[in-house]
């Protein structure tokens, strides 16, 4: 009995933190999403009014939702493919490989920072280094921030550039694959490409699945990049839902409405995660799997 109390005492900081910083705000935001709370006055219950407005009259929400989905469906596969590609290269025994592994991981540490977002703004500016390079190659400079399509590409590239954490996880998975499998395949005449598709990929599907879920959740929550680089523009082409939530909550003080958007975003993430879990039964293979 006493030991159980000691265990609880050890757990209590975590439980308290979870309650105070996660569960209570989580519940509060659900309640506020059914109110007209504006920070300055007590909330009044408005039922489904916020949700009704979101789905019936709010053009900005529809636009922002579409942009967010486009952004996530662009960044997640691109980032995973790039991370796996680099991890595959770094899995080979090359001279100075540890230096390369560190160098490729660095953007992940820096990527979310404000300084990098500001740097990105200068790199892709009208007279930035990217356009200078294009000019050097005899190509026309591109209006990266002024054109709605290009602006989305710019912030997508920033996200893909931060592939380090996914890459490290892929690298660990690649290193855990039994080398004898490749040797056996080579003896049977398999080309490296065949080995990659029929041995590597199936054996790392649990890690691909893990990275997919993590990157998808993070993609839906992206804020710093578009906030600093494009402020959601032009024409709301980079106006991701977290930016919309922020503007409604802290610029227009519509905390109730912002909570409703946050809950819609949460539900979207949850549904897509459930779909991913459901689909994983068909393409993720674990050790001892009899399929």
């Amino acid at each position, binding site marked *: 009995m006493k030991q159980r109390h000691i265990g609880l005492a050890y757990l209590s900081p975590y439980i308290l933190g979870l309650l105070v910083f996660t569960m209570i705000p989580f519940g509060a935001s659900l309640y506020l999403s059914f109110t007209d709370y504006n920070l300055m006055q007590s909330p009044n219950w408005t039922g489904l009014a916020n949700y009704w407005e979101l789905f019936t009259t709010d053009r900005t929400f529809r636009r922002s939702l579409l942009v967010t989905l486009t952004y996530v469906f662009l960044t997640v596969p691109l980032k995973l493919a790039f991370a796996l590609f680099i991890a595959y290269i770094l899995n080979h025994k090359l001279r100075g490989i540890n230096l390369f592994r560190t160098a490729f991981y660095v953007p992940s540490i820096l990527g979310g920072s404000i300084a990098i977002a500001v740097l990105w703004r200068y790199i892709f*500016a009208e007279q930035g280094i990217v356009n200078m390079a294009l000019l050097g190659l005899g190509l026309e400079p591109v*209006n990266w921030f002024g054109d709605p399509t290009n602006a989305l590409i710019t912030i997508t590239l920033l996200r893909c550039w931060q592939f380090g954490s996914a890459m490290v996880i892929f690298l660990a998975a690649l290193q855990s694959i039994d080398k004898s499998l490749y040797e056996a395949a080579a003896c049977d005449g398999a080309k490296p490409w065949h080995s990659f598709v029929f041995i590597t990929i199936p054996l790392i599907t649990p890690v691909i699945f893990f990275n997919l879920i993590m990157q998808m959740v993070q993609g839906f929550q992206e804020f710093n990049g578009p906030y600093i680089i494009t402020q959601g523009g032009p024409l*709301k082409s980079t106006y991701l839902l977290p930016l919309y939530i922020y503007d409604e909550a802290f610029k227009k003080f519509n905390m109730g409405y912002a909570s409703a958007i946050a809950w819609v975003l949460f539900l979207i993430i949850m549904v897509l995660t459930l779909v991913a879990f459901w689909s994983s039964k068909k393409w993720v293979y674990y050790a001892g799997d009899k399929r």
Partner: protein
Amino acid sequence: MKHLMLTTATLMALTTMARADDLRMSWWGGDARHVATQEALKQCGTKYGHTIAAEFTGFDGYLEKLTTQMAGGTEADIIQVNWPWLPLFSKDGTGFADLRSLTAIDLSQWTEEQLTAASMNGVLQGLPVSTTGRVFFFNKTAFEKAGLAIPTTWDELMAAGGKMGDGAQPFNAVKETAQLIITLSVVQKTGKDLVDPATNRVAWTAEELAAGFEFYNQLVETGTILSAKDEAAAGGVNLFEKPEWADGRIAGSYEWDSTYAKYADPMAEGQELVPVEMLTFADAKTKGVYRKPSMVFSVSKNSKNPEAAAQIVNCLLNEEEGIAALGDSRGLPASKVAAEWLATNGKVDPMVKAANDIAMAADGPVISPFNEHPEIRGLFLDTLEEYAYGMIDAPTAAQVVIDGANATLAKFD
């Protein structure tokens, strides 16, 4: 032993608390203002025996931070508040301490008109720090180099479009500045502010506002300003940080009079920035100056020591220690004694004075704080962007702004 340890810990905690700052002050601004305000707080703190923690930042994000603090009741004791935010935080006059109830403040240094402008529901919620207005700044050197006279009318400005050489523009109008240019053009043509105070609804007709949008388009088409798309290509860099501004390839803008130094300081050597009279149309009904109390100092209603906060506020605005240290870091002071002291002691930048004189002398309707309400401003800017990108025409843009602004205004009926 246990009691002894507890007593020692309590005493240590109390000692720490006694040493802690007893007041906090928050403000936004640039480097010059931060340095001046910290010095002023030091001087006033020493005079009255208070220690004041300084909480300062740039303008971006200040409103969001203040809003969160106000909602949580953790705002600083002394708060710099943008005048248009007063209705947001204190619609009924209870958002901040009633400054008329604090005895340490010498209210005779402001006119009743100034105090009324800083009151909500008849309760004095802030002390006007300065009165400011948007004025035109032009790069005299750039115009001389192009062989052109500095414009005095809109027609002259547009005539300079495409004639500055090296792909230079005679003028800048981005985001809020572009919105205020449209506002100015409509005010000059109609003589009316955006909001009719009698009805609390938009005073302009859709046709009048549509003409404002079309005027903006004219500025783009004549090469007077860059298009929104070309402006966005630069990555949203502030005007005063742009190399084109520093070297005169952007030769003018429409900015707050108090920000003269912010725009003049980064200019390359040999470039001279001058404030000029309001540009007008031939048929203008008014110069349409956008003049308002720039900011107020408020005292938190949650302050544990409001009289001490009032002492510091009074020192900053009405007493020599504060006046000398603050100088013109917030523009020319609204307080009579501060304005006199700075003038007598030659502490005002002559250019800031010249800009302020223009803003104060020009006529125009009384500006409603709702011009800068976040919802109305956000709507105006979003609609302007859609218009600038050719997504909607001027009449549609005007109708969207009027309908949206009226919907926001209706919440304040």
